[in-house]
């Protein structure tokens, strides 16, 4: 039977220190760990990550269907009564149908995933916009721009969801291809191959390359943050020099304007980071002098 000499309370068998005041127990024969009394299980509680159920219940779908059906029918009947055919009511009705799809789609699909829901929602909005364009005549007049933008949004979301962050190079590759395709499409739609090859593609390529370098050295951030920050600065300088060169070449001739100024700041800073990273004494000195 052990007591805390400071608090005076009796302690559980095998305690090394008083849980109240942390005073050491001076009863060596009772400190045998095999003799300890465990009052609680040693099992750690499971960390539960809550799953969010997006799917509404069937009753909710019925309710929403009914609520949306009423204004749809009223709109339709008013339009038909006055104009004898569907005219302006096409717009509110298609909007209400879109709303219905967005709200109730998760409930319709068995074993749905967030990816499926997002895909359905994005494509529904694209089809809705295109149907409006189609109805107003001269298709395609404007709707292909928001439609391909939505497609790009889908690519950005789908990449990480399909490949997961473990295959980050596949994600970056899909983003590169998606963005390049989007820019090429915009270039073609706005009157021919003007700026995609000389301007957009090189800039996109260098940004993707920087992303790949960043992904490759992501482990460095935890272990050697100074080295990682220095490398980021060097990569940033290269990216800016390429962008600067490409833009100037496109506008007039190969000439660098602002990127050398940036390089003059970042390159020496990066070199300083590399030196500090390699020099333990200097690192300690800096921490000592500037700690907050």
């Amino acid at each position: 039977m052990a007591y805390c000499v400071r608090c005076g309370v009796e302690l559980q068998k095998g305690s090394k220190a008083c849980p109240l005041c942390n005073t050491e127990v001076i009863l060596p024969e009772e400190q045998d760990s095999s003799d300890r009394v465990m009052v609680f299980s040693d099992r750690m509680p499971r960390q539960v990550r809550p799953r969010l159920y997006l799917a509404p219940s069937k009753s909710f779908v019925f309710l929403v269907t009914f609520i949306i059906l009423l204004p749809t029918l009223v709109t339709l009947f008013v339009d038909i009564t006055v104009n004898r055919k569907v005219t302006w009511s096409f717009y509110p009705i298609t909007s209400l149908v879109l709303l219905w799809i967005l709200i109730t789609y998760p409930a319709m699909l068995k074993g749905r995933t967030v990816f499926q829901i997002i895909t359905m929602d994005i494509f529904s909005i694209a089809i809705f916009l295109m149907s409006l364009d189609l109805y107003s005549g001269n298709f395609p007049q404007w709707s292909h721009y928001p439609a391909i933008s939505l497609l790009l949004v889908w690519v950005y979301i789908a990449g990480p969801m399909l490949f997961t962050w473990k295959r980050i190079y596949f994600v970056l590759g899909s983003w590169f291809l998606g963005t390049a395709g989007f820019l090429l499409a915009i270039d073609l739609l706005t009157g021919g191959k003007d700026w995609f090859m000389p301007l957009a593609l090189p800039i996109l390529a260098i940004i993707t390359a920087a992303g790949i370098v960043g992904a490759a050295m992501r482990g460095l951030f935890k272990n050697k943050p100074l080295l990682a920050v220095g490398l980021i600065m060097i990569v940033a300088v290269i990216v800016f020099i390429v962008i600067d060169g490409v833009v100037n070449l496109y506008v007039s001739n190969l000439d660098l304007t602002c990127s050398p100024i940036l390089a003059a700041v970042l390159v020496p800073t990066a070199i300083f980071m590399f030196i500090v990273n390699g020099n333990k004494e200097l690192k300690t000195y800096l921490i000592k002098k500037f700690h907050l």
Partner: protein
Amino acid sequence: MGKGTGKEERQNENREQHVWYRLDNAALIYPSIQSDRITTMFRLSMTLKEPVNPKILQKSLESVIDKFPFYRVRLKRGFFWYYLEYNPKLPKVERDVRYPLGRLHPRMGTRYLFRVRYWQSRIAVEFCHVLTDGTGGMTFLKALVYDYLKRLGKDVGDPGDIPVDLLSDEAAEDAYNRFYKSPLPLPDKGRTAYHVKGKFLRPGAIRITTGVIPMESIVAESKKRNVSLTTLLVAVYMDALQELQDSHISKNTKKRPVAVQVPVNMRSIYPSKTLRNFSLFVIPEIDPRLGKYSFEEILQIVRETLITQTNEKAISRYLSRNVGGQRNWLVRTTPLFLKKLLMPFLYTRMGENLCSGTLSNLGLIRLPEGMAKEVEQIDFILGTNPINKTGCGVCGYGDKLVINFARNIHESEVERLFFTRLVKMGLHVKIYTNYSY
């Protein structure tokens, strides 16, 4: 009811899906404030004399849960309020863990608002406060252990007040609303009290310090001072908090009131048999700006407050304020997502800010004679929250008074000051914890 196959569960769901309950007045706030740090849970456990058989315990749970239909529920979200609906799945017993009282995620999936855990010879139930208070929880635990012991073939005798049949609707009533009186003068707003400071443990971790004291000696101590046991413990708690504040704030003018929230079982004031929430609080308070209080002075203040505040007239003001707020048309017609934004503010402003800690005494638990032979100890543990980092649950059974402190910070100063005070009174305190192995 047999083990739930998918088909059976669907049939049950069809049959019982019309069963639903409104949240009672006290429960309204909890779903909106739940987080990994505010788990809104409490735990009751019985330590038996023999190791627990989990298979038999599971059978008992499946049988007992249907006698408490208002606990066989899951939390759902309505447009204006949360509500509880029949849960077709069967609850499962699980092995106990090092850190009890972890958060349940009642809004996600089909989870129950309580869990049953076993370890060695202990059976524990952890309830979310949305479902019930300590009295309801204890009734459920008694019924579960009674059924378990009976299945084991023990001679448990007559159940006494333990429910063994399906409970009536009266047990599921919202007693706050039943005893509500038209608006009464509002109670005092109160002031922000002193709060213990400390370094938080990681979310989900909790440190339990249990002190076991011989019942006879502590009852004798309170009789000597001519106060009730609760009064004595609350006074010791306040004295400990006063010393803690004095230790790191020297200027009297900068000190905050030391106040302890003491839950009052409203069933002893109003004639209700509800097994859902029916408790309110009394908050004895001292103001250290006026100088240091001696223990005798604190004891007197606590005694006076508990006597004058726990009568029907005084407590009905709190009841009127709480239920009045719930019945207000503006409040009722505000959508839930807006209410959810306001609830954390109300919880802080009208609840946790006003006190420095909570001490809940379930009193002396009595079990039928046959059952009492099989039960060694009963524990009651309160959950913690980030404002008041400690909570103290007290319950007496047999010849032991068990005081459980739970905290979410590393520092154990409150417990140390509390228990050393009891030791200085000449009481024998045995301490054990879930963290100092």
